[in-house]
Each structure stands twice: as C-alpha cells, then as structure tokens.
C-alpha cells in the first residue's frame, strides 16, 4: 500500500531557487549597474585593438607635437607626456588588469579552496598545520611582501602576479575553512560517510557545493581588489614596466605633471576606480542575491 504524502503536509510551495534569486537581483539596482560596468570593462579589454581610436598608442610610439594634450573630441582622455592617446592606453591597460585577475585568481582560488577544504574536513593535525601556516602568511603585510618579492625578482608583470598569488590564497583558505567547519556539524556529512562515501566525494560533491555561493561573491570582489593591488604595485614602479600601458604606471607618470595636466594621472585613476566599482557592486549584489554571509 502506498501512502501518499497527506495534503496536510503540503505547505505553500516556496519559490524555486532561481525565482527567489532573480527577484532579489531585480530589486537591487546596484547589482545591475555593477554587472553593466564589469561587462563594459571586459568588452574594453577583449576588443581593445578594435575599439581603441589610436591602437599605436599602446606601444612606444611617440608624437611630441601632441604632448600634454587636454581632453578633446579627438583625444577623449587627452594625451600623455609623449603624445600618446590616453583613452587607447586605458583600454589596453584593462587588458593587463584583467589578465592579472585571471592569472592570480585562477591559481590562488583553487589552491586556497583546496587547503580550506582539507583543513576543515580532516581536522586534527592537518587542520593545525594548514591553519597555522595560513595565519603566518596572513600576518605578512601583503603589499610589503609583494614589494619585496618583485624587488628581488626584478619588476615585471609576471613577477608581480606571482607575488600577489603567493599571498592571495590565504583569504580563500580561511573563508572555506570557516564554512566547512560550520557544515561539519550537519547531519548530512555524517549521513554521507555512513553511506560509504569516499573522502573525495564528501569534499567535492557534498561540501564544496555549499561553498559555491560564498566563493562566487568573494571571487567577484577579489577581482576588483587584484586590480587595485596590481595598480598599486605598478604605481610604485614594481609591476608592469613602461612602455606597456598599465593603469597604475600611468597614474604614477602622470602625477609628475600635476596639477596642470591633471588628466594624465586622474583619468587613468578613474579608469581603475571604474573597474573596481563594477566588481564591487556586482559582488555585493551577488551577496544579496545568494544570501551569503561573508
């Protein structure tokens, strides 16, 4: 005899995951704006060679007659100290920034997640080792360390990325560790173990899905901060070297010509702000949407 679930059990069916999330997203103008900004940055970076009005500005070509040109209809962001169109350089600069984001996060995030999973799940000595190591790494002031590493390893883009990656994973480890530790008390973990599931199954099929929301939010926010960090490094002269168009370097070189030629440093600075703003708003929006506690 089959006993169907009695009608008394049927509560008003809650909206599906997607419907709830979409409802929240649409109520959150900031998230929509953020998404739009991020898309604009990505498009700018990907299609820079086609979008830039003066693609040769990305190189070392100089045009001394056009130096220090104020923003105008022909040069939207003006020209820099050697006559290159700043708008074009900004577009190419976004390539560098996004490249850094992909490189750094692509390595640091999986590594950090893995460590966090292992530490939270296995506990005991594994946990102690991993978390103490993470604590120590966290105590290193990131900028100082990045500076030190790039200084010793000769400043260029790759080394800057290495430096940032070496320190970035710690935050993800901590986050994932905290989530996993919280989940370990839940019965479904034990239920999985009682079902005979392997460690790998529990780590990646049971626990990890519970981290996805938090990871998505954090990665989005991180993208903005990686851009910030990379720009700071090049601002100090330790990241990307001229003549490669990098936003931070542009701010640095441009700052020498303040306040008369303010656009040479301020507009690239604004471009950095634009990108960070986009990722930040989108990340916040995601956080509300996915109802994540970060």
């Amino acid at each position, binding site marked *: 005899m089959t006993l169907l679930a009695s009608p008394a059990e049927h509560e008003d069916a809650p909206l599906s995951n997607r419907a709830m999330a979409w409802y929240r997203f649409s109520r959150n103008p900031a998230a929509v704006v953020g998404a739009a900004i991020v898309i604009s940055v990505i498009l700018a970076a990907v299609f820079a060679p086609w979008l830039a009005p003066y693609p040769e500005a990305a190189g070392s070509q100089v045009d001394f007659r056009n130096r220090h040109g104020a923003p105008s209809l022909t040069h939207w962001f003006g020209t820099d100290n050697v006559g290159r169109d700043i708008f074009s350089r900004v577009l190419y600069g976004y390539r560098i920034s996004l490249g850094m984001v992909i490189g750094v996060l692509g390595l640091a995030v999986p590594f950090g997640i893995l460590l966090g999973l292992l530490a939270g799940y296995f506990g005991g000595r594994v946990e102690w080792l991993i978390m103490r190591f993470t604590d120590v790494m966290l*105590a*290193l*002031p*990131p900028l*100082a360390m990045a500076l030190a*590493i790039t200084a*010793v390893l000769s400043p260029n883009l790759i080394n800057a990325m290495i430096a940032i990656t070496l320190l970035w994973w710690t935050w993800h480890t901590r986050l994932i560790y905290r989530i996993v530790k919280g989940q370990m008390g839940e019965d479904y973990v034990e239920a999985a173990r009682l079902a005979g599931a392997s460690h790998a199954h529990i780590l990646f099929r049971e626990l990890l899905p519970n981290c996805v929301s938090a990871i998505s939010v954090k990665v989005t926010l991180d993208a903005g901060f990686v851009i910030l960090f990379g720009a700071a490094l090049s601002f100090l002269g330790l990241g990307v070297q001229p003549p490669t168009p990098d936003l931070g370097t542009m701010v640095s070189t441009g700052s020498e010509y*303040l306040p008369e030629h303010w656009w040479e440093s301020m507009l690239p*600075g604004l471009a950095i702000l634009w990108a960070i703003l986009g990722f930040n*708003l989108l990340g916040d929006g995601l956080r509300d949407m996915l109802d994540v506690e970060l």
Partner: protein
Amino acid sequence: MIPYIAKRAVSLLLVFLGLAVLIFVIARVVPGDPARIALGPLATAAQVEELQQEMGLDKPFVVQLGNYLSSLARADLGKSLLTNRPVLDDIRQALPATLELVLFTLLLQIILSIPLGVVAAVYRNTWVDNLSRIISLVGIVTPGFVLAILLQLLASYQFESFPVTGRLDRSLDFTADVTGLLLVDSVLAWRWDVFLDAVRHLILPATALAMAGVGQVMRITRSSMIEVSSRDFVEASRAYGIPERVVAGRYMLRIACVAPLTILGLEFASLIGNAFIVEFVFSWPGIASYGVRTILQKDLNAVIGVVLVSGVFFVVANLVIDVILGLVDPRHRLRAARST
C-alpha cells in the same frame, strides 16, 4: 582573564616565529645572489665574495637560519647596506612617524565607521543609510594612491589649507624625543602650536589611508547590527519594554561589534601595506618610505627588518583586538580557550 591573554600571547608568539622563519626562507630561496643583487652588476667577483662572507652567505643553510634566529632574539637585525648603520637603528628612527600615522588612522577609522554603521543600521533604508553606503563604497573602491593624489590636489593646490608633505613645518623647531609621537610629545611639552601643525600634516595622509578601512568596517557594522537586531533576545528585550536606544547600545552593539572588530584586525595588515603608498605620496618619513627605498636598492637586511616589523605590528594589533573581544564577549574567551 589573565590566563586567556597569556594563551593568546603565546600562540601569537608562535605565529611570529613562523613569520620570521618564513621571511628568512623566502629571502634565501628567492633566486639570485643577495650579495650580487645588492652590489649591482658592475661589482667584481672579489667584492661580491667579500660581501658574501660578511653577510654569512657562504655558511650552510641551517647555520644561517640559526644565526638569523639568534640575532633576532638579541634584536639584532643586521646592517643596512644602504645606510651602513644597524637596521634596528634605522627602523627605530623611522618607526614613530609610521606609528603615529597608523594610530591616528585607526582612531579615525573607529570614530567614523562604527557610529556611522550603527546609525545606518538604526535608520535603515532612509537617506542617512544611503548616504553612508555611498561613502563606504567610495572608500572601498577608490585606490589608495588615487585618493592620496586627489587629496593632495584638492587640499593643497585648490584650497591651500593642508600641507602636502612631511610631518611638521620646518619653521617650527621641535623634535619629539619622549615618545617619538609628535602629537603626544607636543602636548607634554605644552607646545600647542606644534600639536596643531602636526594634526594638519596628519589629516590628509590619514584620511587617504583610512578610507578603505572605513568603508569595510562601516558596512560590516551595519550588516552586523541588522543581523543581531533580528535575533530572539533582542525581540525579547523590546517586549520587556527596554527602550530602543538601550537595546541598540547595550544589547545589540556589544554583540554586533564582534564582526567589525575582527575585520578591523585583519584590515590592519592592509593598512600597513597601504601605508607604503601613502607615505610614498606624502613623503612621510616613516618605515614604509624606508622600506620602499631599501627595496628598490635591494638592501636585503633592511627589507627583512621592515617586513618583520610590519608582521609584529599585525600580530600585536590582533592580540589587542582579541583581548578586547574577550572582554566584550565571554563566549569568545571560552571558545579561544578550547582551540590551540
């Protein structure tokens, strides 16, 4: 309470030890010969070798590590290749400036962010809330160096009210010899003109430094307060007729401030990092400037010294935060006692 502090201090000491070893390992493992790097490509082999011996680079790794740790214990950080003085002296000279900047910034952050966060939470979804959210967003999103330059631009070139570089006007003849902190020493010496001038010099760099942290902490305070206000015991205390402001203050804030304080502790690390940039832009004579100069010169001992000191800062700051949290929340004490 005392055993709690002692336990935390011990564990942080371990962190510091790990830090020291880690820095050492990185410094030695990184490719390139420190001596050659320091002397530059033009140095002769003989000069390099001489420096190597002087720096102890020819001895086996473990011996080097041992020497390093023992000299650390004696607070000997080696000699700076740049200034040719003990690194410790260099740092001791530069430290007060940074310390003052950082402490002032922290003060600014706490004064601005926590009350604003509370207000934003209490007056949720009104214009006050929206304004505060915009402020915090601007703070988080604006790169430190952009803000620093912008502030310099606006304040000194446009309005000419705040100075752009340095700690003190050269015309004011004063050295801080008691604590090294201008604000404190000037008051002790009853030199209010010095005090005011020091503050004027501090405001711009401190604001530039503070903004990112203010943004984060304000936001966390706000969300923490909102989360706490929906908890059962808050509903219960309202039902008992306890006035809203007391509920907000004593019942919610004490619990809600755990999250922002924790973030503040973590923020401290990036504060030190950002100090590098701000000191650079404002020509502030602190250890960050010292650090940047020595890094560019590849002065290994000095670099290690600077990184170590920054690490100590971070560790101590977190200890202080832990203690405060322990005072505020008894559960924190018990939880901490249970973990390693």
